[in-house]
Structures are given as C-alpha cells and as structure tokens.
C-alpha cells in the first residue's frame, strides 16, 4: 500500500485539531484547573511595563514566532533518513502528548507564579548555587547554538548554496531599522509600514537573484555575523530587535502558508521509504529519533525563553490553552512541513537516496537546510513561482530566522553575563559593551575553534539537541511536582517526563562513553557536567516527592516563593 503525502498530512492535521479540541481541553479542565475568572498576573500586577493584559491572538502570534526558529527545520531533515513514517509520527504525537503539554504546563505554572518563567521558578527551588550552575549551562548552550547558527548562515551565504540570499538578507536589516525609526521616532502607522516592508522584502528577492554576493570567504562571513550580533545586542531594542522580530514573524506566516498551499497544489508522492530501520552508519532509531527531532516535537528551551513575557501578558487563564498548547501545535506544523519537504519534495527516489545515502551524508547542517529549502521550493514551483525566486525567498526566510535568533540570543547572553556579574559582585560585567563582548567571544569560540579539523560547535551540536530534550524532561518534572502538591492527576505530565528523561539520558550516556573512548576531553567535560546536573535535579525532585509523601499538605494553586 502506498500512502499519499497529502493524505498523510491531512490525517496529521486532523490529529492536531482533535488533540487541541479534546485533549488540551481535558488538560485545561481536569489537570491544570484553568478558571477564566481567576485574575492573571497581567491583571493583578498591571504596571503598563511588564504586566499588561494583551489580546490572545497577539500573544499567540508572539509566542509562536518566538518558539519557532531554525530548529524545527533542522531535526526532521536529518531524521527522515529512517524513513518518513517515524519522523512524522514523532513530530505529530510528540507535539500532542509531550511538546504542547510541556509548553502549556510551563505557561500555567508561570501564571500561577506571578508571571515568572518556569526557569525562574525552578531556580527558586534549587537555591543560589544551583542557580549559578544552571545559568552557566544555559550560557554555554545558547553560545553553542549561536556559534552553529553563525556557521550555518555563513555556509548558506557561500557560493555553493545561496549567494543570492545575501543582498536581501542584509538589506532586510536596514529595512527593519528604518521601520524602527519611523515607528518609534516618527509615529508612522504600523499598517502602511508593514505593507511597504513586506513589499520591499519580496522585491529584494528579485534583486538578489541578479546580484549574488560571492566575495567574502567563510571566515569573513562569520566575522561579519559576529559584528552584527554585537551591534544588535548593544543597540536599543526599538531600533533593530523589535521591527526585525515583527517582519520576521510576518515572513514566517507568509512562508509557512505558501509552503502548505504549494504542497497541496503539488500533491507529490513520497520519494523516501516509509521506514528504514538500519540506514548506513546511523545510530539506533530508538532513542535517537527523539533527540534528533527536538523542536517541532518537544523543546525544553520554550520553557526558559518564551514563557516569561507571555505569562505576564495573558489576560485570562482561559487563553492559556490557545497560547500555550496552540502555539506549539503551530510550531509542529512547520516540523511536519520539514518532514514533507525532505521526503516528498524530491523529484525521485534516486534523488532522495543520493542525498540520504548514509548518516554521514545526512548529518551535515548546511546540507540539511539546503534539503529543506530545495523541497519547499519544489512545492512553491507548482504555484507558478520560478525555482530561482522561490529558492531565494525560502533561503531569505531561513537566514532571517537564524539572524533573528542570533540577535535576540546574543542579547539574552548579555543579560545572562550581567546577572552572573551581579551574583559574583563584578560590576564591570553589567556594562553592556563588556557583557556583549563576552557573549560574542563565546559565540566566536564555537564558530571558529576547530577540534580535529571540525568546528567545535558542530561536534557539540548533538549535545545541544540532547540538552534541549533534557530540559523539556526537567520542565515537565517541575510541572509534575507543581501538580503533585496540588493533588491533581499526574500521569499526563509524568509519563512524557519519564519518556523524555529516559531517552535523553540514554543518548547522553552513549555519547559520554564515545567521548571517553575517543579521549575527546573537550567534549566530555561539558557533557559530563550537564549529565551530572540533570541527575542532581532528578534526585532533588525525588527528595521533594518523598518529603511530600511524609507530609502530604496540599498547596493552593499559587506558587509561593521561598524568601531569601
């Protein structure tokens, strides 16, 4: 029996809708005890700065754009080496039962904890020493991811890939800055600027095709990107980050929409096999597929990054399902598109086999992104968009994702450095130029330093995936503990938690053994620290459960913060 990709996609979308309507509602009512009448932090602490009730669609759009980055495209592009079925199943079922539950739970705990992010709530539980260690690990991981992003963008800009995307991507930075000035200083209408901005963005794709930029080398591109990251981190948010984020989210909606329309119009057939359990050189599918596809199915970083500002602006608890669970389903749609693009976006089985001949061939980030771009371009072609233009357009969107992640993450690293400076009592670290400098140097290290002829960031990339999943497990653990102390059903968060922890800890111990055998101490050290930290947090949680069993006093729905 052969399954048509269109039918498969329809089944998946039906599953999403059913999950949102039935499962998410059940979670909201029975597990998280959502009560639309209970005032949220945005209402209780309204200050017009951080705490402001906002429209649910606005929050959904923001949450969706901030959790969706490059990663939902990266993971599936590798994982389809095991065939389309496992990747698709994990993207859809993972999102429904793990990822969206995780995001929803994190958001609910956040709004019950004065709008603090789940990360902050956990810090409050583990004390100052754990907190600094936690910050160090987060710093390390974000710097690692950004080092890899810098590398990937530089590769995409190289003559072999998409040099025609350089000019539009660069120009978009200036378009955004112009928009920032026009809105902030000139008070121009956002609607007309939006139309103008999108028109310019599309027009630039045409200019880019005529004017590919091929001069700079890989290293030179990386230096330029680092300079950009530094600039974006020290400039005021209204000038660059705000308009860029805005244009970027609109591009995301236009892009994902166009890809799905193109996919439906193309009605392709699968070039990939449904299942291939033992591709050449690939690790065992279980548990590796759960780690290779992180974002798109489940991602722990969502709890750290996005829940803070969303939770402070949620107008009623009733919106939490739509914003928390719904936005993750939205991200999963992009993950599903990546699976479809990398399995049905190829012209023939031969073309697919050539690309996915072995794990080594599949496991290169530049090629992965290129596979995604090529697949979606193939879908867009059916809509009458020529390959050259469609490819450039998708490449610009991809680069713009990566650049937006880069600039906001560099700023996040900067705040991280300042905070650590506060804890350690080093005033110099709160200077924005010093803190941004440190952040950029850390990113530089992962993008430039080579170990055995391979960039450090790329070797450690898998560590990012595993830690991301590990964080998801730990966040679910925190949510489960929250529910435990409130006498609510546990299995809906506990089961995905156990699943995530088991699969990531298995992959991590396999990695640790490999690093140990190969004598790769540079890789062993960070992996071992993260592993230990995870085990430590699990033990802390187990102790908390034991304490609760001895003295089972239920708390109110609000999280009470421990005084210093």
């Amino acid at each position, binding site marked *: 029996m052969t399954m048509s990709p269109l039918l498969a996609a329809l089944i998946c979308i039906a599953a999403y809708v059913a999950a949102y309507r039935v499962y998410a509602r059940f979670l909201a009512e029975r597990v998280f005890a959502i009560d639309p009448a209970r005032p949220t932090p945005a209402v209780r602490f309204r200050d*017009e*700065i*951080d705490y*402001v009730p*906002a*429209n649910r*669609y*606005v*929050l959904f*759009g*923001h949450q969706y754009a*901030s959790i969706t980055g490059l990663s939902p495209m990266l993971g599936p592009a590798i994982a389809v080496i095991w065939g389309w079925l496992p990747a698709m199943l994990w993207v859809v079922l993972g999102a429904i039962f793990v990822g969206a539950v995780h995001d929803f739970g994190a958001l609910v705990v956040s709004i019950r904890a004065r709008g603090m992010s789940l990360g902050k709530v956990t810090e409050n539980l583990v004390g100052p020493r754990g907190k600094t260690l936690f910050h160090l690990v987060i710093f390390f991981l974000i710097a690692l991811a950004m080092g890899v992003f810098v590398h990937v963008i530089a590769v995409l800009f190289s003559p072999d890939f998409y040099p025609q995307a350089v000019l539009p991507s660069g120009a978009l930075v200036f378009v955004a800055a112009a928009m920032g000035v026009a*809105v*902030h200083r000139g008070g121009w*209408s*956002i*609607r007309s600027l*939006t139309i103008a901005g999108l028109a310019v963005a599309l027009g630039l794709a045409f200019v880019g095709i005529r004017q590919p930029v091929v001069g700079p080398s890989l290293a030179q591109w990386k230096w330029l990107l680092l300079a950009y990251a530094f600039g974006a981190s020290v400039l*005021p*948010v*209204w000038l660059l*980050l*705000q*308009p860029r*984020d*805005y244009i970027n*989210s609109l591009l995301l909606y236009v892009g994902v929409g166009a890809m799905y329309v193109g996919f439906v119009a193309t009605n392709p057939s699968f070039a990939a096999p449904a299942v291939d359990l033992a591709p050449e050189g690939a690790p065992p599918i279980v548990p590796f597929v759960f780690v290779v596809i992180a974002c798109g199915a489940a991602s722990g970083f969502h709890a750290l990054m996005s829940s803070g*500002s969303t939770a*402070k*602006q949620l107008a009623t608890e009733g919106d939490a399902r739509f914003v928390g669970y719904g936005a993750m389903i939205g991200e999963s749609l992009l993950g599903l598109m990546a699976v479809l693009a990398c399995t049905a976006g190829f012209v023939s089985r031969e073309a697919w086999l050539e690309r996915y001949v072995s794990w080594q061939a599949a496991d290169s980030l530049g090629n992965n992104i290129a596979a995604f771009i090529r697949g979606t371009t193939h879908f867009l072609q059916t809509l009458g968009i020529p390959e050259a233009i469609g490819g450039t357009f998708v490449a610009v969107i991809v680069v713009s994702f990566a650049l937006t992640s880069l600039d906001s993450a560099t700023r996040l690293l900067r705040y991280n450095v300042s905070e650590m400076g506060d804890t350690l009592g080093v005033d110099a670290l709160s200077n924005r130029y010093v803190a941004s400098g440190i952040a950029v140097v850390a990113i530089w290290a992962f993008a430039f330093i080579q170990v055995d002829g391979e960039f450090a960031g790329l070797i450690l990339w898998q560590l990012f995936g595993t830690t991301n999943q590990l964080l998801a497990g730990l966040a679910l653990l925190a949510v489960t503990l929250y529910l435990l102390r409130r006498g609510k059903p546990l299995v809906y968060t506990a089961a995905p938690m156990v699943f995530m922890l088991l699969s990531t800890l298995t992959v991590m111990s396999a990695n640790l053994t490999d690093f140990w055998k190969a004598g790769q101490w540079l890789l062993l050290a960070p992996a071992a620290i993260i592993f230990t930290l995870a085990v430590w947090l699990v033990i802390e949680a187990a102790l908390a459960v034991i304490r609760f069993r001895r003295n089972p006093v239920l708390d109110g729905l609000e999280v009470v913060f421990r005084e210093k």
Partner: protein
Amino acid sequence: MSPSRLDGVRARLARARTLLGEFYTAPYRGAVARARRDEDDLFMLFVFAELMGVPNPAAYYTLELQPLLLERFHEWHTRMGLEHSPLDHFRCC
C-alpha cells in the same frame, strides 16, 4: 453596500489595525518602557542636580522644569533607593 455594513467593515479594519499595532509593541513593551524610564531618570538628575549639591551649569534653565516634574519626584527618589526625599529644604514624604 448598505451604510451599516460599511460601518461593520470599517470597525473590522480598525480592529485589525489595533491588533497589528499591538502585535508590534506587545513583545517589547517592557524593554522599551524600561529604556525610556532610564532616560527619564537621568533627566530628573539633571533637573534636580543643583538641589542636591551637584553643580550643574544648566541649573538656571532646568529650574523652570522642576514644578513640572515634581509629581514624578517621589517615584524617582524611591526608585533610586532613597526612602525619603534626599533634600533638607525640599520635602517630599
């Protein structure tokens, strides 16, 4: 199109515009407000510098601004970590 329908369309367009504006401002509202407040704090220092014994060549000009900023004075000095007005001859709370 009947007038009532036209009004409906107009109302919808206006709503779309508000939503778009919100979508632009909401994510960074806090950051922008904080940056603006920092600037304002510096401005307050300029205006009230002379009163606190910090020589300010522009004092002659900023004197006029003092009554305008007085309402925000309390908020400012508490944010700067001073529980009461730092000035002997200038009571606040």
